[in-house]
């Protein structure tokens, strides 16, 4: 066996490497929120069509992730958090990622259109385009509001799930979109506050770098206030219910309290306790979104069972 053979074996892409291009962690959030969007809709899809719709939405989301990894391979290599991704680590070529991203995008859009309706297929196509082109290629490296814009791409799945069931966009689906869209900035800015060197090294114009950390703290609080209003509003529509409403009020009160604490801290205090408050806020934000959609799902199940009106 030659040295060259050893090198080849080390760099031979395995199936898991190609799967990692689809950002499986992000995909779980996409699947969960799209599923809730579909199940809270007033129209019931055939279970197998529902399963296929979620599958194709997940594949579409994964395809967008692959296109993002292809485009962002240079900054992924610089950032510690992303340096082990398949392209920067040399396991998959950028060309392969591009091919897989494009092929899966086309496949997911056409199949979702055929399985449910073309409004859902079109919305999925727009989501992929928005994430890969508008966010990744255009705005991520040019504006400090990149996270706000990128959040829109992640906010579409529940709306696509809703449209797959009903065939049209309505207030409830817009509010589910708003819930994720407005949740994204506080979530990522909290991360940027304690992962400072990563974004600085990569030259990504995060708000923490361009406008300073004090402004970022104020932005986190402002977005959290607006988020709370939209989150509670969703509970007053047909998609919500008593469990969602109680959950939303409790979680948002807690979230506002955390954002207020972040707003009031200066860098000295944050560094003294190794960004404890920011880290706690970030971890809670993951639970926040999961519990909101979990509560929506619970209300939908109880409505179907006839327990609540």
């Amino acid at each position, binding site marked *: 066996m030659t040295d060259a053979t050893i090198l080849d074996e080390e760099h*031979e892409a395995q*199936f*898991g490497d*190609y799967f990692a291009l689809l950002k499986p962690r992000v995909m779980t959030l996409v699947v969960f929120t799209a599923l809730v969007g579909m199940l809270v809709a007033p129209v019931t899809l*055939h279970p*197998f*069509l529902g399963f*296929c719709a979620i599958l194709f939405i997940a594949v579409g989301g994964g395809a967008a992730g692959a296109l993002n990894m292809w485009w962002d391979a240079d900054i992924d290599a610089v950032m510690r958090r992303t340096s082990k991704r398949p392209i920067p680590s040399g396991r998959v070529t950028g060309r392969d990622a591009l091919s897989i991203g494009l092929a899966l995008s086309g496949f997911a859009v056409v*199949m979702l259109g055929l399985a449910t309706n073309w409004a859902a297929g079109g919305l999925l196509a727009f989501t992929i385009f928005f994430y890969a082109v508008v966010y990744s290629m255009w705005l991520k490296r040019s504006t400090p509001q990149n996270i706000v814009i990128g959040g829109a791409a992640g906010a579409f799945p529940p709306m696509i799930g809703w449209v797959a069931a009903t065939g049209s966009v309505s207030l409830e689906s817009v509010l589910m979109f708003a819930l994720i869209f407005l949740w994204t900035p506080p979530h990522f800015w909290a991360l940027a506050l304690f992962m400072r060197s990563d974004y600085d090294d990569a030259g990504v114009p995060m708000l923490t770098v361009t406008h300073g950390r004090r402004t970022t703290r104020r932005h986190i609080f402002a977005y959290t206030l607006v988020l709370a209003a939209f989150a509670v509003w969703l509970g007053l529509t047909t998609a919500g219910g008593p469990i969602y409403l109680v959950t939303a009020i409790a979680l948002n009160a807690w979230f506002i309290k955390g954002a207020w604490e972040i707003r009031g801290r200066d860098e000295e205090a944050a560094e003294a306790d190794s960004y404890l408050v920011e880290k706690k806020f970030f971890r809670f934000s993951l639970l926040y979104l999961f519990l909101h959609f979990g509560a929506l799902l619970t209300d939908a199940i109880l409505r179907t069972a006839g327990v609540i009106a």
Partner: protein
Amino acid sequence: MIRAEHEIHRRRRSRNVGMLVVLIGLICVVFGLTMVKVKQLGAAQSFDHVVRPELLPGEEAPQ
């Protein structure tokens, strides 16, 4: 020297098995979708090389 299993097969086993699973999954999904979509159309009849009076336009089926 001819080997029954080339080294590349071992090296690419996970890719090949993964691709097999994906393709089988795709066949199942397309088959399932076809069955559900066709069943949602309801009962359907068409010409099948035998004259069926009930399909002729404007004529009552014989009693």
